[in-house]
C-alpha cells in the first residue's frame, strides 16, 4: 500500500499540488484521473521520486520516501516497475534485451535463469516470437506489452503506469487494461495508473482518485463514480454524449 499525506509541490511559485491525500491499495488497480494540467503527472513523478515535493509524506508500506537515504531509495526502486507513456524501451536493445535489462543490472541469476524469466514475462504479456526484434520494428501495442514485461521482470511490489493507453486503438487499449488488471490481481501488486481514458476508468477502476486543479476532489470506485455528486468529476468523466448515455442507462437500470 502507498499512502500520500498532505503532498504539496510548486514550480516557480505556482502551486501544482495542494496538500493531496491519497491511498493506493495493494492488489488493486488504483487510477489517478484528471484533466490535462491538473497535476496528476506531477503526483506520479513525485511518487516515484523523479520530482521532490515541497512538503508531505509518501509512505511505501510505512516507509517514507522523502526521508530515505540514497541507498534506501535505490533499494526501493528495485521494488518499483514503471510503464511510461511512450513505452521508453531502449532503442539499442532487442525486445529480449529490454526485458532482461533489469535482471542483468539487479539480479544474481545465471544467464539461463534470466532468459527463462524474460521468456516467462514475455509469454505473460502474450508476446512470443518477437525476442530479436528492435522496438522500432514492432507496433505501439507490442511496445507497451514489452514495457509491461520489463516492468514485471523483477517481481515489483509497486507498478506505475503513465497513460498506458495513449496512442493505442480502442481494442488494444482494452487488452492493455485487462493485462494490467490481471497482473495486479495475480501478483498482488500495488498498481497506480495515471490516465484520462474513460474506458479504463469505467472498466478497471477499483480505486479512483480524481485530481482537479491540484486538489484531490474525489475518491471511489468505478461503480460509485456513477452516483457522485461532484460537479467537476461529472463534467470530466461524462463529458461526451456517449458516456452521458452510459450513465443514464446505468442509473435507470439501478432504479428499476
Amino acid at each position, binding site marked *: 500500500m502507498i499512502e500520500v499525506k498532505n503532498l504539496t509541490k510548486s514550480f516557480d511559485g505556482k502551486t501544482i499540488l495542494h496538500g493531496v491525500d491519497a491511498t493506493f491499495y495493494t492488489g488493486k488497480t488504483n487510477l489517478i484521473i484528471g484533466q490535462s494540467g491538473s497535476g496528476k503527472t506531477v503526483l506520479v513523478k513525485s511518487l516515484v521520486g523523479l520530482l521532490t515535493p515541497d512538503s508531505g509524506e509518501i509512505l511505501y508500506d510505512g516507509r517514507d520516501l522523502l526521508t530515505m537515504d540514497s541507498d534506501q531509495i535505490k533499494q526501493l*526502486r528495485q521494488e518499483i516497475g*514503471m510503464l*511510461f507513456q*511512450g513505452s521508453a*524501451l531502449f532503442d539499442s536493445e532487442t525486445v529480449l534485451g529490454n526485458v532482461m535489462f533489469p535482471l542483468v*543490472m539487479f539480479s544474481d541469476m545465471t544467464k539461463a535463469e534470466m532468459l527463462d524469466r524474460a521468456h516467462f514475462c514475455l509469454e505473460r504479456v502474450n508476446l512470443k516470437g518477437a525476442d530479436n526484434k528492435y522496438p522500432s520494428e514492432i507496433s505501439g501495442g507490442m511496445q507497451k506489452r514489452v514495457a509491461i514485461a520489463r516492468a514485471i521482470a523483477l517481481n515489483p511490489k509497486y507498478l506505475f503506469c503513465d497513460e498506458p493507453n495513449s496512442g493505442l486503438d480502442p481494442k488494444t487499449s482494452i487488452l492493455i487494461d485487462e493485462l494490467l488488471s490481471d497482473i495486479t490481481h495475480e501478483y498482488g501488486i500495488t498498481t497506480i495508473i495515471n490516465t484520462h481514458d474513460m474506458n479504463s476508468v469505467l472498466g478497471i477502476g477499483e480505486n479512483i482518485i480524481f485530481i482537479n486543479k491540484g486538489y484531490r476532489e474525489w475518491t471511489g470506485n468505478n461503480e460509485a463514480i456513477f452516483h457522485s455528486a461532484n460537479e467537476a468529476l461529472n463534467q470530466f468523466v461524462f463529458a461526451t454524449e456517449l458516456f452521458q448515455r452510459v450513465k443514464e442507462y446505468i442509473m435507470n437500470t439501478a432504479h428499476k
Partner: protein
Amino acid sequence: MRSVFGRPNRWKVTMQRTLFEINKLGVDSIPLVIIISLFIGAVIAIQMQLNTESPLMPAYAVGLATRDIVLLEFSNSILCLILAGKVGSNIASEIGTMRVTEQIDALEIMGVNSANFLVLPKVVGFIFFMPVLVAFCIATSLLGGYLVAVFTDIITVSRYVYGIQAMFIEWYVWYGFIKSLFFAFIISTVSSFCGYYVKGGALEVGKASTDAVVSSSILILLLDVILTKLLLQ
C-alpha cells in the same frame, strides 16, 4: 560529474558497454580519419612545395614541414575538431533522444545511475581509442604526402622520405598524443552534458547536437593554446 565517475551498478555491464563504445565511437571513425588524413597530407605536401620553392631551402624541407605540421597540429587539434562534429553530435543526439523519450527516466526509476551508465563508457572508450585514431591520422597523412611524391613530379620520393625522417623530435609525437587525450575528454563530456540536459523534443535534440559541436570546438581551440604553451615551451 560525481555521479558520472562514481561506482557503476555492475562493472561487467560497464566493461561491455565500454567495448561497445570503443567500437561505435572509435573504430567506426577510422574510415573518416583515413580519408581526411590521406587528402590533407597530400595537400600539405603540395602546398609546402609551392611555398618553399627557393634555392635557399633544402629539397627535403617539404617532407620535414609536412611531418611537423601533421605531428604538431593536424593529427590532434584539427583531427579532434573534425571528430567533434562526428562523435560529438552522435553522443549528444543519442543521449538527448534517450532523455526526451523518457529512456533516462526509465533507467532512474529502475535504480540505475543513468549518468554513470550512459556517459562513463563513452568517455573511457573514446579516450582509450583516441591515440589509435591519432596514430592512423599521422600514418595516413604522411602516406598522402608520399603518394604526391610517387605520382607527381613536384618532389622526389627519396627527398620526401629523407625529409620526414630529418631532425625528428620524438617529443612532438607524445605532445600530439597528450593533447588528443584532453580533447577526447572534452568532446565526450561536453557532448554528453548537452544531450543529458535536453528538455523538449526533436527540435531541442538537434539544437543540443549543434551546441555540443560548437562548445567542444571552442574548448578544444582554447585548450590547444594552453597545452601548446605548457608542453612546447
